[in-house]
């Protein structure tokens, strides 16, 4: 069982670091609590939906900001609002925080500011995606080794 313990330790440490570094907030923990034997892949499924959403919305924002003849900031804001919502629902704190700043720039109709935020949000989404994939991989390894995924408090 030593392998399992090691993996569990790794999982808990990694999870703690994600929270500490602000990638995830308490809402993510809330979602983990909703996962059980009846819905064993719930968190992975929500995360997948979230990342699909991210990609779609980021593309919308990029397209809207590219418009040379005049940026429709309301349109950009609508996408940012949606992304802010879903990142909040999944506990993606850093993504959410960029969205908050992003909305201010939309309101100010500041194209440069918006473009910077777009870059940041793209970065944060990529980072989070990688980190969650690592976390999920650790979970799979624990289960494959015959252990159970420890619950985070």
């Amino acid at each position, binding site marked *: 069982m030593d392998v399992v313990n090691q993996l569990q330790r790794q999982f808990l440490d990694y999870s703690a670091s994600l929270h500490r570094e602000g990638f995830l907030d308490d809402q993510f923990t809330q979602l983990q*609590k909703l996962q*059980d034997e009846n819905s064993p892949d719930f968190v992975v499924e*929500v995360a997948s*939906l979230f990342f699909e959403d991210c990609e779609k919305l980021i593309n919308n924002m990029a397209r809207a900001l590219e418009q040379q003849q005049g940026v429709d900031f309301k349109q950009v804001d609508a996408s940012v*609002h949606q992304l802010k919502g879903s990142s909040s*629902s*999944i506990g993606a704190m850093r993504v959410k925080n960029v969205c908050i700043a992003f909305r201010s720039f939309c309101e100010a109709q500041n194209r440069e500011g918006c473009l910077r935020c777009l870059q940041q949000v793209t970065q944060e989404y990529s980072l989070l995606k990688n980190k969650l994939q690592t976390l999920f991989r650790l979970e799979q390894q624990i289960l494959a080794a015959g252990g159970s995924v420890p619950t985070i408090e």
Partner: protein
Amino acid sequence: MARDGGVTWRRTEKIDRFNLSAADTAEELHVLAVDDSLVDRKVIERLLRISSCKVTAVDSGIRALQFLGLDEEKNSNGFNDLKVDLIITDYCMPGMTGYELLKKVKESSVFREIPVVIMSSENVLARIDRCLEEGAEDFIVKPVKLSDVKRIKDYTTREFRVGEEERTRKGINKRKQRDSFDLSSSSPPSILSSSPVSSSSSSPESQSPSPSPPSIPSASSAPSSPSPIDSHSPTRRVKTTSSE
């Protein structure tokens, strides 16, 4: 579905995480969840299912009305066939907002008794008040947590169990006071304590009272549990929610 008002039974507070057997389905609340965000729909669906509710999730107000059979005003039989016990809807949606959906539901003689809960990522007091005034039972600031669903479910479950006689004693939602019921005593105001309208007196409403169909499940009632309802009031939640 057995809904005779004479029988009330205790329901434990704990969230049941088992698969419900056929015998339990009669007890299951059927919740209609409305949200344009796929992520949010997935989350609310899980929150409700884990709280032993039957869920129908739709992505727009229009679809919600279609599901209810309200879209073309064709209440062919005048009944809540699908037995929706609760509607929980996002506020900000393209097309029909949650507020507009709320109004449509409350304007319907068949469906207006169904409690409607609004969810929003923005805790704007004016928005909250407006929704409560229009007859919303509660207002949840997103992200929605299990405790939010539990609270709503307790609230709805109590109403679910309560018989018709009990219904007359509550007076929280002023809209219901337009019904020709004899309000014997006023109920302690709960979530509407923040609302400027007094909940205990009969309010001057433009719509005339109409008799409610007896088959409709009872709507909000005075919470009988000793839990501090005020601590769950939207304004309190507004203060404690961690947002921007």
